[in-house]
């Protein structure tokens, strides 16, 4: 198949296994984001795809060809680094053309392709400058240009936007997405920024401690997290977690924390099997709804963010965060009533953290 396929990839350093049996299929044209906290193994995985780090076991296919034993330059990939990694002593033109020169391409053809890429990225006026004379955003474009010019089967991005300031990061994000739509090439993109993952990816792979926690579309990862780790890592402010039991009382389903009963509305039929079992309820701030029939909650703090407002509530013996519009004013110490949207909430096993619903 086209794209990238990892089969039983294992990585060990001096006998210490850091990744075991990673299996992953990246379809041709996918924008796959490897998401996870620092040290989760996402960069190691990317380096193994690039061939910069050898695999300890398993195999990697790129465009249907086993590249496990091949050097990086023979793998038909290109990579963009967080630090840009431009050659400081070369002009932008030479930076972009260096890979082609190493591949033995004739000068005239290199010139042509460099100009084309420069045109595409709007960096033509910068071609004769040195990297040190460029701003961070411009260096980033050159780094992308150096990858584009090789026309590889797969682009690898290692946290490419992390060194940019917030405004520029948002602009480059949009540009990367456009670029992907325009070129339709396979991209593997490493980040710890969930906004980048949600906005860019066609498929998100959430990693933790060297293993894949969930691999799915960004929507599914957000709406139906496979386990508690994914649920807590994705989404800001983070999901509310409450331990308790699902109970039914007079045709109404509640989540009993021992200190109070949270009423659940629109509970799916599948939840019926879970009644009476101890578990963890996961409810995102937007899953808490203000409703007069709900449980009484005391306002602790309100945080307006502009478009939204996050309200910290003391409820059922714990604290939860709810999200609402900016219009309503919340006085700390006042009481309101809330219910939980049972259609969108998650339920997790208390022992292994796996999603039950």
């Amino acid at each position: 198949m086209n794209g990238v396929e990892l089969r039983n990839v294992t990585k060990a350093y001096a006998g210490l296994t850091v990744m075991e049996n990673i299996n992953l299929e990246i379809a041709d044209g996918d924008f796959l984001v490897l998401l996870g906290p620092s040290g989760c193994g996402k960069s190691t995985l990317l380096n193994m795809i690039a061939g910069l780090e050898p695999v300890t076991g398993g195999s990697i296919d790129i465009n249907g060809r086993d590249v496990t034993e091949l050097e990086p330059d023979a793998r038909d990939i290109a990579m963009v680094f967080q630090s840009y990694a431009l050659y400081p002593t070369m002009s932008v033109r030479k930076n972009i053309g260096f890979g082609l020169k190493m591949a033995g391409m004739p000068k005239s053809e290199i010139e042509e392709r460099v100009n084309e890429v420069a045109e595409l990225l709007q960096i033509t006026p910068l071609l004769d400058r040195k990297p040190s004379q460029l701003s961070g955003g411009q260096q980033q474009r050159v780094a992308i240009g150096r990858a584009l010019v090789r026309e590889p089967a797969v682009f690898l991005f290692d946290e490419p936007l992390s060194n940019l300031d917030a405004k520029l990061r948002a602009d480059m994000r949009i540009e990367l997405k456009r670029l992907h739509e325009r070129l339709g090439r396979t991209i593997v993109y490493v980040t710890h920024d969930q906004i980048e993952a949600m906005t860019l990816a066609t498929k998100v792979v959430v990693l933790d401690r060297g293993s894949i926690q969930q691999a799915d579309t960004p929507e599914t990862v957000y709406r139906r997290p496979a386990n508690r780790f994914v649920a807590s890592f994705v989404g800001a402010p983070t999901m509310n977690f409450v331990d308790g039991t699902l109970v039914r009382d007079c045709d109404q389903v509640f989540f009993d924390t021992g200190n109070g009963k949270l009423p659940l509305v629109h509970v799916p039929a599948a939840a019926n099997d879970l009644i009476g079992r101890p578990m963890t309820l996961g409810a995102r701030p937007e899953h808490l709804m203000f409703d007069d029939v709900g449980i009484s909650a005391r306002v602790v703090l309100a945080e307006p963010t502009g478009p939204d407002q996050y309200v910290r509530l003391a409820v059922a013996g714990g604290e939860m965060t709810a999200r609402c519009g900016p219009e309503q004013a919340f006085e700390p110490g006042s009481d309101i009533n809330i219910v939980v949207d049972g259609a969108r909430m998650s339920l997790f096993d208390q022992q292994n953290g796996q999603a039950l619903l």
Partner: protein
Amino acid sequence: MRYNRWALYGLLCLAAIMIMAPVFIMISTSLKSMDEIRNGSIFTLPADPSFAAWSKAWLGDCTQTLGKKCGGLSSSFMTSVQIVIPALFLSVGLGAVTGYSLAVWKMKGANVMFAALLVGMFIPPQVTLYPLIIMIRELGIFGSIPGLILVHVIWGVAFTTMMFRNFFKTVPQDLLKAARIDGAGFWALFWHVMLPLSLPILGVAMILQFTYIWNDFLLGLTFGGRSGQPMTVALNNLVGSQFGEKEYNVDMAATMLTALPTLAVYLLSGRLFVRGIAAGAVKG
């Protein structure tokens, strides 16, 4: 505040005078005639400055030769140039390549090699003199310019390797990864990426190696033989082995002539030198 400033300048001036005084006396004496030296103080300025002593030191005095040569330093100057140029480029070039391979390529035993080089740097040359003599003799180049060049290269490589290795260790990993993805192999990475990066260090290594080799006396005396006698050895012979009256003006002029090339290199490359040292200080 102001008082401190004056104290600082005073101290600096004192240091400058102490360092410059001998140089001044040498130049002043070299421009005097022997009569003036005999009768006057060494601190007085030459009454009638003349370059006669310089010309005698450079060309020799062919009217009163003891041997076949006229005794000037000009021929040994050329010998020194013939020794320094190849020894300089070989030791710095080799050091750059070995330092690069030690720093960037994970070879087996690289750390052991580097430790051995470090130890090599701290062994005084006198200790290895005899084994080196045997080695060079066995190669059949003892007492010749090529033999002396080889010894200088052997001695220089440990130092230059360390300099380049420490510099290349500071090159970011991402840059090396980028070059690997671009398909640059051992030599391409060295030539296109690493060597251009190392220009300041290259400059410092060149200056230091030039100074060491040019100023060397022991190795030149031991390995040069008659045909490979560098300027320092010739200077020693000139100053130390004359009969009759000591020609202080000629001795001073000869010493200045011998020191001039290193002085010129420092003055011409001073800024580059300081920049390289500073770069090393910040990064190393």
